[in-house]
């Protein structure tokens, strides 16, 4: 059991039977009143954020969650298959759990898979991935007014808006949270 002094960002607790993680907390003590911790929790299953006041003395139940580093193997219909590096155990995760970033996942990409009661419930990708550009229109020289971009396809099949100077064969760094181009890493 956790008490209010254990509350910190990332703490995983069980509220009303659902696993939550603490995203924000604030110690509050009204003059001569009981202290409490105003806490914002994110539901690990639905992503919904709730706010709750946890009074000093109240207990929070730890959620039976575990984070494991797993490699992405391949896509199978609507599922993504991951493998534990150590036990070689494989799990299947619905692609929608990952959302838009699923098309940036290369084979063997190390991801963090969150298990709740032994069931995979969330996957977090590394913040940045390096991918090769496999298709891009040639940039039109002279058109440099403002921040002009064009669309490029990367080796995993995803499309990303890139600057005009990016060509086929370039390695680019992409932010998986925003699906945005960050920088060119090298030129083939």
């Amino acid at each position, binding site marked *: 059991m956790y008490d209010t002094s254990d509350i910190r960002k990332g703490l995983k607790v069980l509220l009303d039977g659902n696993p939550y993680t603490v995203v924000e907390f604030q110690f509050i*003590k009204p003059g001569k009143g009981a202290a409490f911790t105003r806490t914002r929790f994110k539901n690990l299953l639905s992503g919904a954020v709730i706010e709750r006041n946890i*009074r000093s003395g109240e207990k929070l139940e730890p959620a039976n969650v575990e984070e494991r580093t797993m490699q992405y193997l391949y896509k199978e219909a609507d599922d993504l298959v991951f493998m534990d590096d150590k036990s070689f155990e494989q799990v299947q995760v619905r692609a929608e759990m990952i959302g838009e970033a699923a098309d940036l996942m290369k084979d063997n990409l190390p991801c963090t898979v969150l298990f709740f009661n032994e069931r995979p419930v969330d996957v977090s990708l590394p913040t940045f991935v390096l991918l090769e550009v496999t298709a891009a229109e040639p940039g039109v020289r002279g058109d440099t007014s403002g921040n002009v971009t064009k669309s490029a396809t990367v080796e995993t099949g995803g499309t990303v808006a890139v600057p005009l100077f990016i060509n086929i064969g370039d390695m680019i760094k992409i932010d998986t949270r925003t699906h945005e181009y960050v920088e060119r890493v090298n030129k083939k």
Partner: protein
Amino acid sequence: MMAALREFFASRDFVEVDTPLVVPAPGLEVHLAAIPAGNGFLITSPEYQMKRLLAGGMERIYQVCKCFRAGEDGAHHQPEFTMLEWYRAWDDLETVARDTEQLVAHVATAVNGRPQVKVGGRTIAVDGPWLRMTVAEAMYDHAGVLVRGDETVAELDAAVRAAGIDPGTATHWDDVFFSAFVARVEPALAAIDRPVLLADWPAPLAALARRKHGNPAVVERFEAYVGGIELANAFGELTDPIEQRARFEDDLGVRRARRLPQYPIDEKLLAALAEGLPPSAGIALGVDRLAMLVLGAASIRDVLAFASGEV
């Protein structure tokens, strides 16, 4: 800032006193946790000892010292913090309210050149009389809850729920009260661009304040709020040793019921009250919070050389 503070009290004929930090009987307030030290505890406030000095004949005293409260750590709290307390014998709470207004204006002027403080990027003028309202007015205007001070916890709970506020797991009078106060009243006080003196607290939140003449449901107590930050807490002091003992025993009973540590009753304070504490008023002001206001700091950690976890 400390020089301006001492200058303020010197110019008003106050004597600076220095009472022990380790005491056998710390504050009994239910929501304060004292830190054990040696054979006793570190003080949560120098209040008991300062009142004994008043009973002993001193009339205007102030003290700046460290106080210690276990488990309090946040943007406005530290387990070890600096308190300023001052007391006036033979004087009333209104004089202490004027002291507070003038002291804050004096310190702000000494540091910033003008009687202004900064909260969250806003400038708040601290000169002139501060806005005054009673707890009942604030709770009715901002939370829609009518509070007298003599209602049962069930009645208060019903009023709070009727106002659309969820008291959560609160079952005690003070917890139900503060669930509405923190949800609605504190944000409203924070939005006011003037310091506020919030007076006439409900009797269940009396601590060491005396009941108000003519309305025993409330007590002579005010809290000073500047930009939503609670800066100080003042009492018209309870001088009756019999009522004081009854309140101490009540607090200990509540502590037992909530399985909180039991502390001894300060018999020496009760003996001093029995001998005769003149009618007095006093106040405790958070010096670190005053520094936050004067410097426009967002967190108490910003005004300390070393905050908790840094030493």
